[in-house]
Structures are given as structure tokens and as C-alpha cells.
């Protein structure tokens, strides 16, 4: 019994990390329909900057801020400098963001080298407890709490604020938003920045959980996160949250028994969901205006 509870807990922790990254991708890919294959690069840079900041200052809060801020800066540069020219051009987005992903992955080796960089857990979050047969680590609880807070905060902004309403309107009909006197391009840049910042934050939080950050961690994470956004339903935060937990638990269980099959099973889950429900678990069929 203990092993199943441990696997479930690990799955939820995995899912929390997935969601932190998937939340940003839900905004960028799910809502704005930008196929951002550079999302993993933003996660990677957030992870490295946070690990470096924590190693040099010992301040974990500052490390989290550094991870998010570097991703926001990179995200804004990406959006304004390149992606703005390929809105409504999915092939262009694919090529541009894949190129950015490769550049970000290689560029991180310039200041930090090709080897892994240790990412320590802050002392304040290093406790652990034995509950029954399950070991509960304080940092894991922090990760779960962070993902729930991000989930609730984004839901509130999107559905209870004027900004959220403008974002939802802009995704549906950006021209008409402009006809309402609203500078939709600025709103999109802001949404992209928030999505990028969430990827950086996910990376910053992932470092101590993984114990080290590596140049390939963005690629490693990216496929599962795309699967999550598609399975959850494009643009659905609730869908992303549920799918994150589903894929997180599935990954934990499958990895325990057949470690090499985890990604394959996740891809199969996506295929099955799309066959049964093409709009994803919580996605909506698009209706004409």
C-alpha cells in the first residue's frame, strides 16, 4: 500500500511541476495559439538563473524572482522581435520557436558550461516526515502549493477581471478588440510575458526538486507539457491542471514499472483522448461568431 501512496504523491508532485510549466503554455499555445517550442528554453533559463542566484546569494525567494524575470525578459524579446511576425502562421511559429529553443539551449552553455549545475533545496523547505509508510518532503508540498496558487490566481484573472475578459476576447477576435479601442498587441505581449515568466518560475522550482539543472532539461520537459495542454483542451486552465495531474501520476507509475515506456504511454493517452474527444478533456468546440 505504501508504494502506491508514494507513487501517487510523486505523481502529484510531478503533475504540479508540469502544471507550473503547462500554465504558461496554456496561455501562449492554448489561448494565443502560438506553437511555442521555445517554452522549454524559457524553463531552462529560469532553472539556471535561479540555481545560480540561490548558490551565490542563498536567498531562495530572490532565486525564484530571478528565474521568472529572466524568462519574462527573454519572452518579451522573443515575442516582439520574432513571434509578432508569425502570428497566424503556424509553420512560421514552429520554425522560429524551434530555432529559438536550439539557440537558448546552446547559449546556456556559454556562461554555465555543458555540465550540470547543482541546485540545492533551501534549508527552510528541507524537512521531511514519515506519515504511515510514506515519506513526505516539505519541498514537495511547496511545489504542490505553488501550482495550486498559480492555478487559482490565473483562473481569477482570466474569469473575474477586465484584463482576463480582454484576453479571452482577443483570442477570439483580435480585430474587434482593437475596434473597441484596446491595444491588443500590447495585451498579447503581456500575456506572452506572463506565460514565459511562469515557465521560468517552473524551472526555478524544478531545480531543487531535480537536484541539478542540465542544458537538456528544457527538451526533456517540453514534450510532456505539450501533451498536457492538448489533452486538457487548448486554452483550458482547468484542463491543463487536471491533465497535469493525470500525466504526472501516469508518468510516476509507468516509470516505476517500465521506466523506458513513460513517454510512449503519455503519447498514447493523448492519441486516445483526441480520438474520443478531439477538443481535449475540458476544451470547447469553436463556435462561429
Amino acid at each position, binding site marked *: 500500500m505504501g508504494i502506491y501512496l508514494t507513487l501517487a504523491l510523486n505523481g502529484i508532485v510531478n503533475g504540479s511541476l508540469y502544471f507550473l510549466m503547462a500554465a504558461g503554455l496554456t496561455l501562449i499555445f492554448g489561448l494565443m495559439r502560438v506553437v511555442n517550442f521555445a517554452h522549454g528554453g524559457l524553463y531552462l533559463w529560469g532553472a539556471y538563473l535561479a540555481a545560480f542566484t540561490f548558490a551565490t546569494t542563498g536567498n531562495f525567494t530572490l532565486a525564484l524572482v530571478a528565474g521568472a524575470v529572466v524568462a519574462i525578459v527573454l519572452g518579451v524579446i522573443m515575442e516582439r522581435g520574432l513571434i509578432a511576425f508569425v502570428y497566424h502562421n503556424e509553420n512560421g511559429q514552429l520554425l522560429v520557436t524551434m530555432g529559438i529553443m536550439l539557440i537558448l539551449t546552446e547559449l546556456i552553455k556559454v556562461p554555465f558550461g555543458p555540465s550540470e549545475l547543482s541546485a540545492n533545496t533551501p534549508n527552510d523547505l528541507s524537512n521531511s516526515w514519515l506519515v504511515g509508510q510514506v515519506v513526505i518532503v516539505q519541498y514537495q508540498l511547496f511545489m504542490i502549493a505553488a501550482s495550486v496558487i498559480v492555478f487559482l490566481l490565473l483562473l481569477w484573472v482570466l474569469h473575474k477581471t*477586465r484584463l482576463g475578459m480582454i484576453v*479571452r*476576447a482577443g483570442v477570439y*477576435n483580435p480585430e474587434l478588440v482593437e*475596434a*473597441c479601442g484596446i491595444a491588443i498587441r500590447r495585451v498579447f505581449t503581456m500575456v506572452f510575458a506572463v506565460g514565459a515568466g511562469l515557465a521560468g518560475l517552473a524551472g526555478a522550482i524544478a531545480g531543487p526538486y531535480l537536484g541539478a539543472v542540465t542544458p537538456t532539461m528544457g527538451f526533456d520537459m517540453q514534450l510532456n507539457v505539450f501533451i498536457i495542454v492538448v489533452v486538457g483542451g487548448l486554452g483550458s486552465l482547468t484542463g491543463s491542471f487536471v491533465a497535469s495531474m493525470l500525466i504526472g501520476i501516469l508518468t510516476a507509475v509507468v516509470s516505476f514499472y517500465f521506466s523506458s515506456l513513460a513517454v510512449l504511454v503519455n503519447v498514447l493517452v493523448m492519441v486516445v483522448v483526441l480520438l474520443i474527444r478531439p477538443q481535449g478533456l475540458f476544451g470547447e468546440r469553436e463556435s*462561429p*461568431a
Partner: protein
Amino acid sequence: METLLEVTNLHVNLAGYHILQGVNLTVPEHAVTVLLGRNGAGKTTTMRAIMGYVRAAAGEISWRGQPLAGLRPYQIARRGIGYMPEEGHLFGNLTVQENLAMVGTKGTAHAARLERALTLFPDLRTAFARRAGTLSGGQKQMLGLARLLVADPALMLIDEPSKGLSPGMVEALAATLCVLRETSTILLVEQNFHLARRVGDYFSVIDEGHTCLSGAMAQLVERADWQRQYLGLAVTSGEV
């Protein structure tokens, strides 16, 4: 009567085609000007050029004497031009209430305009919390007009609001436009000449990308030969 909007020798190229080849248009304040013409004549492109969605290759569009060239659509909207496009004139994923809130939510003047819109379109009051995408065709047109009413721009650009509506709905639309014309300046694109003559004070006919005729609507109503030549109609004078 002050001229709000003036379009002078407007040329627009789209996808390599010379779509507008010299459109001239004057929109006086406190009147309804109807842009007429056959399908594909360039009416919608003219509206989109005024709103800044397409760039003028030559010519000038001026608003209260100031050129609009180089401005983004949101900047043009903030100068007081409201736009209801022919297609996609609402946010189908938002509720009726949210659609109307897109043009602002603050102030007693806004509340009064919202109340006026809901009084004019009672269907929208009952569907206030419904998603706009689930409304009927007529209700969608009403919502597009209601959003303009709430925004209260100095000039309303309305692109073919009768398209796809049943005769009964067109009649209701005509009545609504007659109410709007009492307080608003409107530039209306309309293919339905019966509707156009009922609400219009002035007209301008676009044919093959250029303006070929302009004047008072009463003149056009009297001239069956113009209607035949420029609009392809066979309406006799006085027919409604």
C-alpha cells in the same frame, strides 16, 4: 453641417490586387450616409481602410480635418469611430454582458447608455448572461449594434447589418437604425436598397473600386435609371 470624415482619392492594394482605385466620400455629422454598390465593389475594404485594418496605397482619410494615416485601429477607435464589421462583430466566447463591457464599464453615462441599449434590445437583457455565440442571427446583429450604442462613438461604421436576416428581422433592424439616426452619425454599408433608402440621408455608390456617384438619398430614390445603372435594381420611384 460639419464634415466628420472625408475620404479623398483612396487607393488600396490587397494581395496584389488594386481593390480601391479612387474612393471619395464625405460623411457629414448628424446624418446617415449609405455606401452602396454591388458585391465586391470595395465597400467593406473602404470601411476597413477607414478603421486602419488595411493600409492606403494612396489618397487620404481625414477625421475632423486631421489625417488618420499611420494610426492603428485602436487609436482610430479612441478618436471616436466605432465599427461593426460584417463578419465577426461579436465575441462568441464571452457573455452578452461581457460583450457590452468590452467598450468600458465605468461611469454613470456608461450605465445610462447600457440601459438605453437594453431597452432598445430587450432580448439582450434576457440573454445577458448567455454566451454571445449561442444567440440567433438577429440577436447577434442586435448585440453588435448595442455595443456601438454603449460605446457611443461620434461616428458609427456599420457594415451590412441586414446580411443573412429574415425579412421580419430586416424590418426590426430598419426600425432600430431609424432610432439610432436620431442621435448618431452613421456610415452604413448596405446592399438592401429598401433599407438604405429608409434610413439614409446621403449615399455614395462604389463601383469597381471607385466612387461613381454621390448625393442626397432623395435624389437616388427619384432616379430609377441610376438605380438600374449603378445598383442593378429595377425599382420604380416611390416604391417601398
